């Protein structure tokens, strides 16, 4: 009991004085997970749209692969990225081992399938009659797809947020490829694990609080988007 009370008091004090380690971990989490999500959206929305609306062979297989990717175990992704970026690995020349770039790559692999899969479902849920209508009005295929994406923008935002939510709470891959270096690759989740193992419960509680606030913010945006979409 004592431990929890003193830990919470310490956490409040650290948050109040904007403790540098806490802020650095929050910044590192937001930067790496934000970049990974951004890259997932840039690549995942076009791919998801193509899979959702396309009529080509193998699209069901691609969708199944994306759905599988949503369940990739983070430590397996961490292992794969680690051996690739180690100096002895195929991308060793980049010197990405224990860097944010490696963490962004690992988190991208974790987030992108979610964005692809949910985008595909989102564009499919737009009224299929719209497509015929657009084509009959003389729209090119490319223009028609763009209109579909616009129609489905809120579900796509949800897809992006789901991707972000998955990687911001992730620890296994980020620890393996980032090495938890203080002030650099030490993010909220890896810092919580380290502070807990050191017995610094105040710092761990403070970091956990920031992480929960971030996750709440993500879900608030998603919920707002979903509610706005409801026909009035």
């Amino acid at each position, binding site marked *: 009991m004592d431990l929890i009370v003193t830990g919470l008091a310490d956490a409040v004090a650290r948050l109040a004085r904007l403790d540098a380690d806490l802020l650095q971990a929050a910044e590192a989490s937001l930067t790496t997970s934000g970049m990974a999500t951004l890259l997932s959206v840039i690549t995942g929305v076009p791919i998801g749209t193509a899979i959702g609306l396309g009529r080509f062979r193998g699209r069901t297989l691609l969708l199944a692969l994306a759905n599988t990717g949503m369940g990739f175990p983070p430590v397996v992704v961490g292992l794969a990225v680690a051996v690739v970026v180690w*100096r002895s690995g195929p991308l060793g020349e980049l010197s990405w081992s224990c860097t944010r770039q490696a963490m962004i790559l690992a988190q991208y692999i974790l987030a992108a399938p979610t964005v692809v899969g949910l985008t595909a479902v989102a564009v499919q849920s737009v009224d299929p009659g719209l497509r015929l209508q657009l084509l009959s009005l003389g729209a090119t295929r490319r223009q028609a797809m763009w209109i579909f994406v616009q129609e489905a923008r809120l579900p796509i935002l949800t897809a992006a947020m789901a991707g972000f939510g998955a990687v911001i709470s992730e620890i296994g891959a980020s620890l393996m490829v980032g*090495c938890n270096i203080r002030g650099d690759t*030490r993010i909220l989740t890896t810092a919580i694990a380290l502070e807990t*193992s050191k*017995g610094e419960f105040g710092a761990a509680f403070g970091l956990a609080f920031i992480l929960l606030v971030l996750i709440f913010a993500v879900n608030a945006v998603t919920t707002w988007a979903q509610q706005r979409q409801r026909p009035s």
Partner: protein
Amino acid sequence: MLAACAPQARGEVRVGTTTTVQDSGLLDVLVADFEKRTGWRARASVQGTGAVLAVARRGDVDVVLVHEPAQELAFMREGFGRRRELVMFNDFILVGPPGDPAAAKGKSVEEAFRAIAGARATFVSRGDRSGTDVAEKAAWQRTGLAPSSPWYLESGVGQAQSLIVASERKAYMLSDRGTFFGRRNALALEVMVEPSPRLLNLYHVIALDTAKVPAANAKAADAWVEYVLSPDAQRLIAEFGKDRFGVALFEAAAGKREQDLR
């Protein structure tokens, strides 16, 4: 017939020990032999020394095998430990990247640290109050320097992974001999300094005092203590690593006094 020879099943010993013991591979060997010989089962929880002693204060282990004497003596003074015995030792060495950009090779640890700081060469620290971390911080203190980022990295992971960080970042690092030689083949690192006199890394076993920590099991703790001090375990420790790495990673020290080791 075999069942008749096997020792009677007894229960579980909760052992708190450190990443250097696990990462060198010794822990698995000791646990397997302990279980075979005594009939007890051992459940090891592995963290840095500071964290292991924190877990012990909460009563989540029965016995600890750790390597940071100052924290251990404080633990004994506070009454948490009933008996503390020297089990084994090795020493700390400075390792670094081939090419030695800071020209640290062959110096004393303190001179080498000054050279590293002067060259702002990358240095990896555990930064987690483990035995290795405390030994490293003490060496920095002797130089009178305060190492700082960006060249001084605090890795926040165990000993073996920290060595990988040092290898990948072409950095210097203080390591225990056991973990370094146990992993040498996977690392692009060389021995830079072998301090003389040796910078000893002493491992003590401490049985928890049930008067202070009622959740600890005294019988279980004693079984582990007696095992690691036994001639069988001491022989295992002294031989460990010779077959796979060509060198012993630890030296047996049961019954010896600290001042006799140097």
